[in-house]
């Protein structure tokens, strides 16, 4: 395009921008949000015990003057970068600095408000903190998107993020913040719930993959069956999750009552069995549909060439068709995994376990901190699964069709 000695006239807007720095629109919006969070909403709420209504406190009311000013100054600098800088790594660094300062302020506020050795009072993050954190998080995500990292880099970024959060929590930085107080009380139950949550989401996914892949291949081979199978799975998908859990309770309960072996392996009307079965049923449609779509996009000429060269049907399927369909199949698996991680939360209602136990327990006791103890890890788990599988799909899809 660019020929030496030949220059295009600069557009008028580019000339103007030299005189007057352009304000980044997203940056402006998020700065407003962050500022609103910082100055209009309480940064923390102080509760005399875990279920009493909170007493809102601003940052300046809690921290010494120098710390408050330092905090505001840093966030002002972040805002300046975000409003006027174009350089994506710089914007990311600013967002991360903002997150560190905000987190430190929360920890400091919690420490300042908690009398020594007092395990009764609760200092919870307030609406202002969450709004500020959301604005900074969106800034970081936007900066990362602008840097267009490859799949490997994105996984590394995720690992660094999880590692940093894990280290900070392990060091006890946030021990006086109410959610961590709630964790300290429920540490053993938390480990059990985490294990159950991951087992239920991955187990039902695994079983669904084992059934869906052959079913998808079969639908591809016998196109007559395709509409019937897909609409049957579609109907399952439309049943609301709580309703499906309920529907499964009766037959599984009857099965457990009449077949001793079923009861012996842990099948009951309530608990993990109906939860796993429902999740499995929900997982079928995305994987079957994506397997069919993935196989359909393999060019018929490629398949004919494979057979014409003397590959058996099995070899053609395994080393040509499935390999070429894999990115689309994995996209289906990604949908299912993220969906399952969310749905397992609901499974707690029928005794399925998982992080939902804390969410519904918290709702029952009107203890917001307990709800958060279930909700935050669920979000982190779903987010991590999405990043990991997206990276895998992109890595495998490097070869264009």
């Amino acid at each position, binding site marked *: 395009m660019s020929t030496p000695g030949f220059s295009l006239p600069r557009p008028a807007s580019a000339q103007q921008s030299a005189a007057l720095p352009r304000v980044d629109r997203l940056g402006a919006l998020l700065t407003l949000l962050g500022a609103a969070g910082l100055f209009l909403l309480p940064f923390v709420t102080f509760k005399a015990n875990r279920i009493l209504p909170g007493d809102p406190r601003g940052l300046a009311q809690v921290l010494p003057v120098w710390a408050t000013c330092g905090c505001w100054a840093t966030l002002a600098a972040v805002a300046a970068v975000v409003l006027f800088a174009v350089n994506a790594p710089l914007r990311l660094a600013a967002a991360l600095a903002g997150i560190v300062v905000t987190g430190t302020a929360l920890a400091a506020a919690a420490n300042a408000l908690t009398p020594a050795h007092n395990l009764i009072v609760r200092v919870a993050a307030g609406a202002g903190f969450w709004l500020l954190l959301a604005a900074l998080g969106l800034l970081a995500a936007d900066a990362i998107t602008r840097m267009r990292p490859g799949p490997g880099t994105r996984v590394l970024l995720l690992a660094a993020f999880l590692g940093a959060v894990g280290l900070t929590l392990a060091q006890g930085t946030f021990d006086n913040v109410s959610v961590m107080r709630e964790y300290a009380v429920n540490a053993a139950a938390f480990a059990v719930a985490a294990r159950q949550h991951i087992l239920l989401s991955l187990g039902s996914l695994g079983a669904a993959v084992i059934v869906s892949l052959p079913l998808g291949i079969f639908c591809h081979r016998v196109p007559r069956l395709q509409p019937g199978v897909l609409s049957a799975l579609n109907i399952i998908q439309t049943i609301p999750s709580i309703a499906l859990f309920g529907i499964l309770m009766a037959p599984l309960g009857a099965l457990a009552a009449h077949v001793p072996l079923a009861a012996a392996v842990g099948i009951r009307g309530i608990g993990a069995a109906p939860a796993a079965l429902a999740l499995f049923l929900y997982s079928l449609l995305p994987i079957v549909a994506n397997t069919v779509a993935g196989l359909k996009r393999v*060019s018929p*000429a*490629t398949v*004919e*060439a*494979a*057979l*014409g*060269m*003397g*590959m*058996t049907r099995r*070899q053609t399927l395994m080393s*040509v068709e499935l*390999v*070429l369909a894999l990115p689309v199949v994995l996209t289906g698996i990604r949908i299912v995994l993220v969906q399952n991680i969310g749905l397992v939360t609901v499974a707690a209602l029928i005794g399925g376990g998982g992080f939902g136990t804390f969410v519904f327990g918290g709702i029952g006791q009107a203890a917001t901190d307990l709800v958060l103890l279930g909700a935050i890890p669920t979000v982190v788990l779903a987010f991590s699964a999405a990043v990991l599988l997206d990276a895998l799909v992109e890595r495998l899809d490097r*070869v*264009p*069709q």
Partner: protein
Amino acid sequence: MIVIENLTKRYGETMAVDAVSMVIERNSIAVIVGTSGSGKSTLLRMINRLIEPTGGRVLLDGRDTGSEPGYQLRRRIGYVIQGHGLFPHRTVAENIGTVPRLLAWEEDRIRARTAQLLEALQLDPAVYSGKYPHQLSGGQQQRVGVARALAAEPAVLLMDEPFGALDPIIREKAQDDLLDIQRKFGTTIVLVTHDIDEAFRLGDRVAVMSEGRLLQYDRPEVLVTRPANPLVARMTGSAERAMRLLSLTTAGEAALPLTAGESGADAIVVPTSASLREVLSELLWRGSECATVADANGAPLGRLTVAAILARARPA
């Protein structure tokens, strides 16, 4: 040698291929030509049993092709299709190594054979081995498709409209390359096309098919001079049959010997490989009566006159 005996394929009431018998000599090119729906592709695919015949049989070097599993048969027969069908997820070298790997060749042998084929098809192995199909031009993809089909040294190569996706200029080059390759490796080739010019250009023998039946199977000049029925005559283009006949003979074959005293210093010099059609066209264009036929070094071998050429534009 391929012997096809009463080969038949029936789909319900329709006869896709109706009792076709023909013999394809070793080291020759047989071209099957016909309109779409004439059964030519079905006939080709019954040779490697991608389609199982309803009746009849195929003998490959005397052995019934039905006597072994289809996939094993196909590993011994090269197969090239329109739009190449290269594996998009595998490199050029991996694509070419497909059949040798199925046959469990040693890696060293596969590498040597891949390099040999790429060179024979004018693709530098150092440059192209590691590329993916989408990084190649249409002509290069087609050549890799041919190299892949020839990888396991098959005695027979089946080609289904192999040049159909190429533009006319590249197609002509690809046809020349195919003739070179055929001479170099001595492969027996069966090629399907709907393009009668391509059939005449490539075929030692041309089979004309219509509605599942084989109308005529003979040398190209016989199809022009003695068409078996009006349909063959129409397909081979009766309006320009004289020119078509001239296009089948080269200047080298038709050259008159130089008589003593002739220097061979005509203004027009043509190579031995030029067809009489091309020589006549050149003579008419320049308003000249005769041309010198010269070898690759420019040494005169004989001459051609307009009268001598015209004499060859009639059936003998």
